[in-house]
């Protein structure tokens, strides 16, 4: 029960952060990526705030032997640089630039009821499942 409530609470804080920061504004995100045009630096501050809190927070949290509601920390162990990582990141960046949405902000903006958002999310889920199918085989 604690684990489920923790997930919900973390998601809610995450979503509030998305809406407050301006990440749900696709025009602003594209403005951040418009490095050679009218660059809007706002989103660098989102990344800055997020990294500051997470880097410091992780340092304290990961000193503990285990998280509160699980037996152990589930941390990624891979350190190799492989093709799927590089190609996947590049494909993601293209989609991100085209629309101005990455996964979190798209979900956070769902209730605003905009047609492009409602079209984006199912397509994104389909893309995730396609990638899962391909990578699960190899």
């Amino acid at each position, binding site marked *: 029960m604690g*684990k489920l409530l*923790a*997930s*919900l*609470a*973390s*998601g809610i*804080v995450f*979503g509030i*952060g998305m*809406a*407050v*920061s301006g990440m749900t*504004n*696709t*025009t602003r995100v594209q403005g951040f*990526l*418009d490095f050679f*045009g009218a660059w809007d630096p706002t989103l660098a*501050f989102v*990344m800055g705030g997020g*990294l*500051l*809190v*997470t880097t410091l927070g*992780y340092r304290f*949290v990961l000193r503990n032997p285990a998280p509160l509601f*699980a037996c152990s920390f*589930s941390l990624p162990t891979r*350190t190799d*640089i492989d093709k799927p*990582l*590089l190609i*996947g*990141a*590049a*494909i*993601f960046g*293209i*989609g*991100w*630039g*085209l*629309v*101005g*949405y*990455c*996964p979190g902000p*798209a*979900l956070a903006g769902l209730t*605003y009821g*905009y047609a*492009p*958002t409602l079209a984006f999310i199912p397509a994104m889920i*389909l*893309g*995730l499942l396609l*990638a*899962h199918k391909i*990578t699960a085989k190899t």
Partner: protein
Amino acid sequence: MHPFLLATIGGGLVGVAAVMMMALNGRIAGVSGILTGVFTQRAGERVWRLLFVLGIVLGGSLPPLLNADFKAPLPGTGLLLAVIGGLLVGFGTGLGSGCTSGHGICGIARFSKRSLLATIIFMTAGVITVAILRLTTGS
């Protein structure tokens, strides 16, 4: 409030969410990975993931209730482009094992070389894409 300050506070809240997820459940708060798990994990592993996703949807709806300025404007993208972009974002983050939150925040905060490299690549690809978009559409 200045947009830079709001962005820093909002980003800080995303950080708080990521630290909560690690401290309480021992998990990376990566949206693309958790969203995939909602559909692909075995039953017992689905619920916490679904609640995190629903939490983001719910959380995103709250700030506009307090102040209408927090409601993002309509995305300037047509439906076809939204679908194409959605497929690319989903497929790319699935293949690359993470998105802005998982690689860009949680991964870099763990000093992961994979995440740092992925973040540099998706940022660069995004910058190039927007530059091409501006050149071709003139907008």
